[in-house]
């Protein structure tokens, strides 16, 4: 191998180390038996996990985050999927404007959305409420659903639904038995992105969630403002396991989606 190629590979390796090592360095610290965040570890223990799992603070925040995330995802999925069917294969000024409206929450700086909703929800008594958090997270989650689902619906072969109808399926049956299964991977990937957007949000939580609606990222934010304890590294490790799980699910969905597209393409070629 030429020397510059070795240098190049090392440089790339350094970038990947930069990406991964900081995250991985936290994990062993969470198993430390001491309260200091340094290596070498004086001994191993699960005491920080015990603290995290037995004190209500983190568990409540996690469950609340989960509830908000799932509700916002469900609402965004419903609204986004319906809209995708309405918008697919249509052109024109109004359609363009609606697509823009559905995608803008992704471009607008999150602090603007948070502040604007704070002003808007406060007079409606929706700040510091579960409903307010779900509404706000649905706003930021909708683009994550519309992008993949709209693309999948546009790729959908309209003859499939027609064939189902010709075989005697009623429209609703055709939708649930034929159309929905073929876009399911896209819907699932949209759902995962939507959930991740909600589950990872701090800024909206800082403005909309009052003392009664503590979310996990918000709790982490306030702990980070104080002093860092191994307790926090244990929370971080648990969250890492959780997000790795989401990531694996995502890869599985995408592979399935690719396979479906491949199958469809092969079907097209053989026909």
């Amino acid at each position, binding site marked *: 191998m030429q020397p510059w190629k070795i240098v190049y590979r090392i440089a790339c390796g350094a970038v990947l180390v930069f990406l*991964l090592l900081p995250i991985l360095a936290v994990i062993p610290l969470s198993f430390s038996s001491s309260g200091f*965040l340094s290596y070498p570890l004086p001994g191993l223990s699960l005491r920080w996990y015990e603290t995290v799992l037995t004190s209500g603070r983190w568990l409540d925040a996690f469950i609340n985050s989960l509830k908000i995330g799932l509700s916002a995802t469900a609402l965004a999925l419903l609204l986004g999927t319906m809209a995708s069917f309405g918008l697919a294969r249509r052109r024109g000024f109004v359609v363009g404007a609606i697509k823009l409206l559905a995608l803008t929450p992704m471009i607008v700086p999150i602090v603007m959305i948070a*502040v604007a909703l704070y002003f808007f929800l406060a007079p409606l008594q929706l700040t510091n409420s579960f409903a307010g958090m779900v509404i706000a997270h649905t706003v930021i989650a909708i683009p994550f659903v519309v992008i993949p689902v709209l693309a999948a619906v546009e790729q959908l072969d309209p003859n499939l639904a027609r064939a189902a109808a010709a075989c005697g399926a009623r429209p609703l049956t055709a939708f649930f038995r034929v159309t929905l299964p073929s876009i399911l991977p896209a819907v699932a990937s949209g759902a995962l992105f939507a959930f991740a957007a909600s589950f990872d949000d701090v800024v909206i939580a800082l403005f909309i969630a009052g003392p009664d609606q503590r979310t996990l990222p918000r709790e982490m934010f306030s702990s980070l403002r104080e002093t860092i304890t191994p307790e*926090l590294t244990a929370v*971080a490790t648990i969250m890492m396991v959780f997000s790795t799980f989401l990531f694996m699910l995502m890869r599985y969905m995408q592979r399935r989606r690719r396979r479906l597209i491949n199958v469809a393409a092969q079907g097209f070629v053989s026909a």
Partner: protein
Amino acid sequence: MNLSRTTLLVVPVVGFLLIFFFVPMIWFASLAVREVEVPRALPQTVAALRDWKPGQTPPTVVFDALASDLKTARSSGTLAEAAHRINYEVPGVRSLLLRAGRTVARAPAETTFDAAYFTSIDPLLTSDAFLSVVKRAGGGISDYYILSSLDLQRTTDGAIAQAPAENRLYLDVLARTIKIAATVTLCCLLMGFPVAVLLTTVSEKAADWLMILVLLPFWTSLLVRTTAWVVLLQREGLINSLLMKIGVISEPLAMIYNRTGVIIAMTHVLLPFMILPLYGAVRAIPPGYMRAAASLGARPLTAFIRIYLPLAAPGIAAGSLMVFILSLGYYITPSLVGGASDQMLSYFVATYTTGTGNWGLASALGLLLLASTFLLYLVAHRLSGGRAISLS
């Protein structure tokens, strides 16, 4: 599919986003130009000042109106807000107006409220500086907050001028925001480009594994990653203790709660956003082109600069703009790993909304942020041929 069914499918999302996104945004933006406090508290004074211009002697009716407004506003509790608003432009007037309100309310019934009366309370109350602000802020709409966000102000006679040096802050914040975003973008590009190219040169299976290494941090919560950087970079953190143990340094380096920490943490968060579009762009470059350049006698570096880079340019531009746009709006990372002089525009939008409560200024600064973001987004949209937003 007929039109009515299409409409039915789209109406819920449009309605939801109009109510919970579009209307709140417009309402928040309107705060930048709306003047509420002064028209509410001093309506008669504002009306009496309609034909007055700075430099003229104000008619006596103005002070009669002011006295009557002060009495009403004091009892209805709107005076404090108006005094607060006028105080932005005429420092010191806040306590003065509240005091004037008390004095007027206690005055005997037969008192004549004229210029001399208010001058005896404080000459500032009859000055052009005070009255011109009441007139401008009383119109319902003014450009005060927009001008403030650009470090500008109106002089007593209404001309636009630079704010006094000690009040200039926000152009600095804007410049700092752009500087941090540009530095982070450059770091991401320098680190991301080699990795994107590497992904195209290795086998498909290896690329798949490398991609996992890039995407895993991408899926890890922002707070988890920030925690990691605090653990690593802080004074007694892992990096400092490691460097001191092997004897490279004798004093811990200050790597956090300053600009270095902000740049490192933000680059870490945004690097995947650079690698993904770059990978998409360089993957589309046919390998034959480089071979052709080589066979025509170009040395590797020449071929890279003359052939490869121009072909990768749209992807580089799109990825860089995307990272730049995302970093412009950053709030959480700088507030956790930055110092006081590393806070970006978003921080001031948030602070003025909650802390001191200057909503007009929060809105004007937000508009500044929004305008820069949209402008850059349009450029990115053009460069990427309408595919600036995509999920992989």
